[in-house]
């Protein structure tokens, strides 16, 4: 196990470096748009031509040095203009191009919101997906299975933003009720906060439940075909014992990976839900940054998300190897 962990950690480092390079380069192919946009927004200064303003702005944003220097500064292995090291390695993602506010602070203050949404969604997804997925597998090709599978595909097909929109429209017409849109922190009023988060959370969760349900079903089916299940039946065990004690335990291992793999989808979904339900989370920060073409924020969020996911994937893989010894010895 130890050598497996070491090997996995060894592999994560080049991937992490690549992640930073991809993040950095992604926004460097930008044509002059952000500069033009900002110059258009700046108060016209006396006696400055467009080129001069552009050069000044480039210098202020640190875009006047070669790309590799910019990258090294951003990562934190070369000193910034003021001589200090403020890069990723120092836990500094820079500041917003527009508001000059530090990106890390902004992200940290928004994490609880996105996290709360994510936890509600994940819980909903698992509560819905596991029982239905298992039922669907042990009653394969029955009416119940068809209904469950159709439901699963429906969860995937019906877009969350549509349901989110309808939640605003229909109750308002029928009962004159609209979901609250003013963000209430969890510490201020727990009840109101939960009411506010539960609707977008459940919508996201149901969307996620679709693929989780399908995977649970597939994994269960795979396990149910194994010889040890036949043995269990042959021993004369009750269905309950066969399913719970023999099949479920083995089927759940790969399902962990799948739930882990769903997190990127969850993050995307949260961006949309935060937008609709006006929750000041990370997704909303990202979408606003896209609108303003604030590339510093965009890079910062992309990098943070990718690193979090990379570590999550590692943890999932490790837990997988820990739960299933067959993996380690490959």
């Amino acid at each position: 196990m130890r050598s497996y962990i070491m090997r996995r950690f060894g592999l994560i480092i080049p991937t992490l470096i690549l992640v930073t390079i991809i993040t950095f380069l992604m926004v460097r192919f930008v044509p002059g748009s952000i500069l033009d946009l900002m110059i258009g927004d700046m108060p016209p200064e006396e006696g400055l031509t467009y080129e001069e303003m552009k050069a000044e702005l480039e210098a202020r944003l640190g875009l006047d040095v070669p790309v590799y220097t910019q990258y090294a500064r951003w990562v934190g292995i070369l000193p910034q203009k003021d001589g200090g090291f403020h890069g990723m390695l120092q836990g500094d993602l820079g500041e917003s191009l527009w508001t000059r506010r530090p990106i890390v602070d902004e992200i940290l203050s928004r994490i609880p919101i996105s996290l709360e949404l994510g936890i509600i969604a994940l819980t909903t997804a698992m509560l819905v997906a596991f029982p239905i997925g298992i039922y669907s597998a042990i009653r394969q090709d029955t009416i119940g299975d068809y209904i469950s599978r159709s439901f699963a595909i429906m969860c995937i097909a019906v877009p969350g933003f549509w349901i989110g929109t309808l939640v605003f429209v229909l109750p308002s017409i029928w009962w004159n009720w609209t979901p609250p849109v003013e963000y209430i922190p969890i510490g201020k009023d727990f009840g109101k906060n939960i009411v506010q988060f539960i609707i977008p959370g459940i919508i996201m969760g149901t969307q996620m439940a679709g693929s989780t349900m399908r995977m649970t079903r597939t994994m269960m089916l795979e396990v149910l075909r194994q010889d040890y299940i036949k043995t269990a039946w042959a021993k004369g065990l009750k269905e309950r014992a066969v399913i719970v004690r023999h099949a479920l335990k083995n089927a759940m291992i790969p399902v962990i990976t799948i739930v882990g793999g769903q997190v990127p989808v969850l993050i995307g979904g949260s961006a949309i839900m935060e937008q609709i339900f006006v929750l000041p989370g990370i997704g909303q920060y990202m979408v606003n940054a896209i609108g303003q073409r604030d590339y510093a924020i965009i890079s910062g969020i992309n990098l943070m998300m990718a690193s979090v996911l990379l570590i999550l994937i590692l943890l999932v893989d490790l837990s997988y190897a820990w739960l299933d010894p067959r993996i380690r010895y490959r």
Partner: protein
Amino acid sequence: MTEDTKDLYAGSVSRRKRRGFFADLAYRFIKEKPLGTVGAIIVILLLVVGISADLLAPFGYNETFVGGKLEGMSTDHWMGTDNVGRDLMSRIIFGARVSMFVGLGTSALGTAISTIIGLISGFLGGKFDLIIQRFVDAWVCFPGLFVMLTFVAIIGGGVAQIIIILGVQGGIGGSRLARSAVIAVKSNLYVEAAKAIGAPTWSILLKHILPNIMAPLIIMFTMGLGGAILAEASISFLGYGIPPPTPSWGGMLSGGARRYMIQAPWMAIFPGLALSIVVYGANMFGDALRDLLDPRLRGGLGRYSGNLLRKPKT
């Protein structure tokens, strides 16, 4: 194989096998997958509506009716009109065209990219494969929607741009699937044989590997359809996808339209309904096709309901 043995062989297998691959597939598909067939019909309908939108739509997608704002459903406007006074049904029909282009274009581009990366990386193996795979690993760490939004912010919105962005994004992720298919195929004897007679790598890839990974590629293509349509709608919903006035189902649910939805709920209902039905159909279709093409997932002897110890199903 001589002429005689060929006949002998043909006589010994069932009549069904004489049909071509695709005809046989279609036959089995309709017979064994009723839900998948419904999905296929929905997809075909999308194509028909998308292609002949000009003929089917009663009005132009940007044709406004003065004094006809937010009109309810009527015989003139089956789905009502929007806040600018445009016929909603016409806009949904033209929206089908956008979804069709994005769905097919993205799936085709994505599958092509996956295939190329998968073929090269899987077949050559070694250091090259290792480097490519680290890149793919890094790429799939980024949440899809954020990467798409980032690229839209850089290259702008529009049907072609969206297809490129979604295709590249999906293609790199999907290359893992193509790669594992290639690796599974390349250890076959016929590949060894081709190598032994000195066939060049490109010829082995095209003549021996590619035809044998067709099934996963077809699956990838169909499975990608619904996802691509949904992704475009999500981006357009956030306001960065297809620029107005071109109607996109996602875009129709966003922006200024949202303020009028309580007055005119049809504006909120129909675009989402169209989107849901199409994505549902595409996913059903892709799913059924995968069941048929991927024998590993096909129910067989080990099927639980046909368990040898429980009441056997006939």
